């Protein structure tokens, strides 16, 4: 909300720089997001940092308040006039101007009643009114169509007040105006842009902000008069009120002004509305807006005669819920279907307005209106919130009522509003106000022991300090021993009657006014809860470190996907291997392709691969994240998964020409998985032929740990690859459940002592059937080699001449070592013989001749 400092000063004296005030309000919870300067210089205040402003600072000697005494015709130009200006100098100054709003005074002699404007003397700096972009200019004397001119009367644009450049500023006469006063003292201003949290509903007005300013600065509030001067017949009998839903409409007040004139508002009112971003319309509507922003009490003005016409006599204002199928055309020309819970203002002929939200078109104020019926009411904020949502009707009124306006404010607004209307438009106010108040809220009194304040804040506040803080906020405070008894002022709805919550409410107010900066910084002295490590987090982080160490980058994806996307992972005709669980479906998805939560990490990781393939051929990434499996309960299961993706050249080709070792394949993936398991010291694992539908059936594996299948990995199925256009290079993907890894990792493991005896190395090549898996051959070798065989490393796989068809040669590098003695050639030969014998016997293997 925009808050001009000039307007605030009507209710509170502000003797600190506005920059300091902004900082004090900000730390007190009214966040001042921006300061807009009008004519006044920005001040530097120690400890307060602000963006520097590049606004026009008005020269106090050269930009002056001046009276336009007379307007004369320009002898040589129809579109220019000569304004004779009294700026406090010895003689009148003649300004040549094209301001259209002065033309009506042309050649009519001295202007009476006087009008005032902003005068810029030769040499003063103003904005160039003709320029589209902000451009400064300095006034210099020059001839304008034969008349010498050196100064001017200014438009709002030339002064940086607004973009208005149709005419010059014309202000009505005010008793205290003196020609030659610095303009900065009359129109100079700073507009605070304040952001309010939802609890600050009471601050959505100038008076609301002024109360906070008064409390923060410790000065008195100066309220405007809420009385009115009635001259007409009593309002009783001219209109009736019938509240049918007191819960939704706890108060409804009316005042009546007869024989007034609807016209343009005076400069001061238009100026204030424009400063806060509101468009002036006419004096009646402007007053309703003005009170909305001054007091925070929205008003609604009816054309009284139209109500009489509709009623065919004395109107009755009824607040009620709609009839089935009822409609209303509102001020914004929208015909609205009314939901069952929308509270209406109506009369006997039908709906008039959406209560507290927006008025109806039929009874609105027009230029012909003579008699104005002014409504100020209180509405249930939740009911208003429902109406806003249902009708998508966001107005200044609904913004306030939906956050909560205390019913006490209604009568104040109704009385002050009608009096301002009378002052601006004339007429006679009917005596008295109609005030239907079926449901006044109970006043709230809270007791808080000072000991509790001090204990919760962690500082020593005296009972007098605390009481003073609350009094500044207009609480009624009594001190009873060590207890503060505070009664909330009647503009506040946010203080709870619940004793414990009410205490916290007061605590916050005391802390805010004393200043959060006054609370010390302490170290918790309270008992420390037992410190237990979170194993799941530790192992997850360990997995990340292992995979990063293996050269993989971590990705984190959206958890959203769609059924259609995940269906792409199932080749045509294949049975899905994805979890059979239900999906968590989003009712209001950000996009249709993100309307469920994922069952697998695969979709997103394949999409990552597609995106990254544009820039990088080698990709090695992993993700650890949840999948969401609906299980029929209210909430889904959220197990953690590890996804791994590898693709592209194992080592990129390099300038020395001998780097590349081909593209990554199944065995790279297997290496990553095995090193992960080894690093977690999970030794009880095995692979079986892959069965995951999204992976190539011949080039994938299922991973078993302690006989439990915990994941699958391998080359992605060619059909899946084709769907994602991932066909330039083979893509390896694996997905493993994280929870079994956490469960099965070995926290403690023993190491093997380092032998001091020498090792004997030798190579053997075995020719076996092509269908025999390498793992079986290695198992036979290791079993036969026993304790002495320390390692058997497969270093060559060969088929083709001279190996007979249907056979393959597997060459192993064997390491023999005995910790207890030094092996002789004879010992080694014995083991070798045993291995070859076992291989021949169990695998039908032949030793390949050298």
């Amino acid at each position, binding site marked *: 909300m925009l808050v001009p400092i000039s307007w605030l000063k009507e209710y509170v004296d502000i003797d600190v720089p506005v920059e300091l005030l902004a900082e004090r309000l900000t730390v007190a919870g009214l966040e001042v997001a921006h300061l807009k300067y009008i004519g006044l210089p920005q001040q530097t205040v120690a400890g307060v940092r602000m963006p520097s402003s590049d606004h026009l600072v008005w020269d106090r000697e050269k930009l002056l308040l001046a009276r336009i005494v007379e307007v004369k015709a320009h002898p040589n130009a129809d579109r220019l006039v000569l304004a004779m200006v009294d700026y406090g100098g010895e003689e009148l100054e003649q300004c040549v101007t094209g301001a259209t709003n002065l033309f009506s005074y042309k050649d009519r002699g001295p202007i009476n009643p006087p009008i005032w404007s902003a005068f810029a003397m030769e040499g003063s700096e103003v904005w160039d009114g003709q320029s589209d972009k902000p451009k400064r200019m300095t006034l210099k004397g020059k001839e304008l169509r034969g008349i010498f001119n050196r100064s001017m009367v200014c438009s709002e644009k030339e002064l940086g007040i607004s973009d208005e450049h149709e005419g010059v500023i014309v202000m009505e006469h005010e008793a205290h105006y003196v020609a030659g006063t610095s303009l900065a003292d009359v129109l100079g201003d700073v507009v605070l842009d304040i952001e309010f949290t939802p609890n600050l509903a009471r601050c959505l007005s100038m008076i609301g902000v002024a109360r906070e300013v008064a409390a923060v600065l410790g000065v008195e509030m100066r309220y405007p008069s809420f009385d009115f001067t009635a001259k007409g017949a009593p309002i009783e009998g001219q209109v009736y009120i019938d509240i049918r839903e007191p819960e939704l409409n706890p108060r409804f007040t009316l005042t009546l002004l007869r024989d007034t004139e609807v016209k343009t508002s005076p400069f001061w009112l238009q100026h204030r509305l424009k400063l806060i971003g509101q468009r002036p319309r006419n004096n009646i509507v402007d007053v309703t807006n003005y009170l909305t922003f001054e007091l925070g009490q929205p008003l609604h003005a009816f054309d009284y005669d139209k109500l009489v016409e509709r009623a065919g006599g004395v109107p009755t204002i009824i607040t009620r819920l709609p009839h089935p199928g009822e409609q209303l055309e509102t001020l914004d020309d929208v015909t609205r279907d009314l939901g069952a819970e929308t509270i209406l203002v109506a009369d006997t002929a039908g709906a008039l307005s959406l209560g507290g939200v927006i008025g109806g078109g039929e009874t609105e104020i027009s230029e012909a209106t003579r008699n104005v019926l002014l409504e100020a009411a209180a509405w249930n904020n939740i009911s208003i919130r429902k109406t806003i949502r249902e009708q998508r009707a966001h107005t200044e009124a609904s913004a306030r009522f939906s956050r909560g306006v205390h019913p006490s404010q209604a009568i104040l607004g109704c009385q002050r509003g009608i009096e301002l209307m009378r002052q601006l438009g004339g007429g006679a106010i009917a005596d008295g106000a109609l005030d239907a108040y079926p449901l006044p809220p109970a006043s709230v009194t809270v007791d808080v022991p000072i000991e509790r304040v001090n204990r919760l804040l962690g500082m020593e506040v005296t009972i007098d300090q605390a009481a003073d803080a609350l009094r500044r906020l207009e609480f009624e405070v009594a001190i009873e021993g060590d207890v503060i008894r505070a009664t909330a002022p009647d503009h506040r709805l946010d203080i709870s009657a619940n004793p414990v*919550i009410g205490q916290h409410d007061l605590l916050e107010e005391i802390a805010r006014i004393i200043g959060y900066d006054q609370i010390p910084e302490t170290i918790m002295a309270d008992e420390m809860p037992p410190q237990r490590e979170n194993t799941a987090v530790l192992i997850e982080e360990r997995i990340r470190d292992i995979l990063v160490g293996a050269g993989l980058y971590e990705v984190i994806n959206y958890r959203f996907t769609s059924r259609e996307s995940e269906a792409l992972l199932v080749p045509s005709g294949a049975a899905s291997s994805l979890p059979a669980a239900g999906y968590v479906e989003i009712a209001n998805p*950000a996009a249709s392709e993100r309307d469920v939560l994922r069952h697998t990490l695969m979709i997103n990781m394949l999409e990552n691969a597609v995106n990254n393939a544009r820039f990088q051929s080698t990709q090695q990434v992993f993700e650890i994240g949840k999948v969401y499996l609906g299980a029929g309960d209210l909430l889904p299961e959220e197990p953690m998964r590890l996804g791994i993706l590898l693709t592209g050249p194992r080592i990129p080709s390099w300038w020395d020409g001998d780097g590349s070792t081909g593209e990554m394949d199944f065995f790279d993936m297997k290496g990553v998985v095995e090193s992960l398991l080894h690093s977690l010291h999970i030794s009880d694992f095995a692979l079986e032929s892959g069965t995951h539908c999204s992976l190539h059936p011949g080039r994938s594996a299922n991973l078993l740990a302690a006989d439990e299948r915990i994941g699958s990995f391998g080359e992605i199925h060619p059909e899946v690859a084709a769907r994602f256009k991932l066909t330039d290079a083979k893509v390896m993907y694996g997905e493993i459940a994280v929870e079994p890894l956490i469960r099965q990792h070995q926290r403690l493991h023993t190491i093997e002592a380092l032998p001091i005896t020498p090792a004997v190395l030798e190579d053997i090549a075995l020719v076996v059937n092509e269908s025999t898996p390498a793992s079986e051959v290695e198992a036979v070798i290791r079993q036969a080699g026993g304790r002495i065989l320390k390692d058997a490393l497969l270093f060559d796989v060969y088929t083709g001449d001279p190996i007979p068809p249907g056979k393959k040669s597997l060459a192993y590098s064997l390491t023999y070592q005995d910790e207890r003695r030094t092996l002789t050639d004879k010992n080694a030969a014995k083991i070798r013989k045993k291995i070859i014998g076992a291989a021949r016997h169990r695998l039908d293997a032949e030793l390949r001749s050298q």
Partner: protein
Amino acid sequence: MSDAIVDIREKALSALEQLKDSDSLTDWHSLYLGRRGAVGKLFGTIGALPPEERAAFGQRVNALQKELGAAFEEREALIQSQLLARDLEEGEIDISLPAYPRRRGGLHPSTRTHREFQMIWADMGFQVYQSRDVEEDEFNFTLLNLPPHHPARDMQDTFYTKDPRVLLRTHTSPGQIRAMRELGAGGTKPIRVILPGMCYRQEQVTARSEIQFTQVEGLAIGRNIRMSDLKGTIAEFAKRMYSPNAKVRYRASYFPFTEPSMEVDVECFLCGGKGCRVCKYTGWLEIAGSGMVHPDVLRNGGYDPSVWSGFAFGMGPERITMLKHGIEDIRYFWGNDLRFLQQF
């Protein structure tokens, strides 16, 4: 006969002088001094001489062998030193050629920041408590003092599921209730936890806002937890996370689940508080929303709010990561462009 010795000597020495590299040295050595070389052959002829000449001849061949051996070593040393000099002079490589690529992986920047957070908070006795992403409306809002139609529900645009009782958590705060109920032993035990995790909001995805983001929430419950403790604890975090001299500002604010509530700002570490584009020339960066746990929330967690008190705070790791690394587009985080990830 003696002419043969002289011949060999002259031939050998003159050949030696021509030699320029170690290969030809080796050849020369086997030609003259090897087992079957010229000198060796001379020794082989001794047996064929008359006995009286044998001793003198033998001495001369021995002398020749020594002389040639010495000359060889001298020549070898010379060639070695020449080769070394040449290598030092001419064996220069172009060190500007690109390095061989090493496989280097990396953690996601979000993980890096979360680890930093977790380490700092662990030092202050806050343990990690993980809570669920898909939540009940009741835990995400109602039990946190945000009943249906509460104005503060407008502050968060929520992803609801097809079951209106279930939503994607909009903040990590529902974990407060779960942690209190799980760890509080019926409101009898103190708690100190942090709750990291992914949160979701139905927003337009732009450079500044995302539909998913991580949060770290902190919660301390005890019989004597004070607002001054909240200030002291967050100030300590700011000193560890930003700078030992970090200045901190506390502003009154509003969160339905805390009261009193406050926003915590830290002096902008990019400009030292002088004002820059990132801190919007205010000199301050917002780092945490916090406050004393609201009595209703304590009660909903199983604690008696007239006996127990607590504080809570919430922080946004992405924002801190963005500030620290000058990341201007939040969409980088879940975009997973390797060119981004490889910069950490």
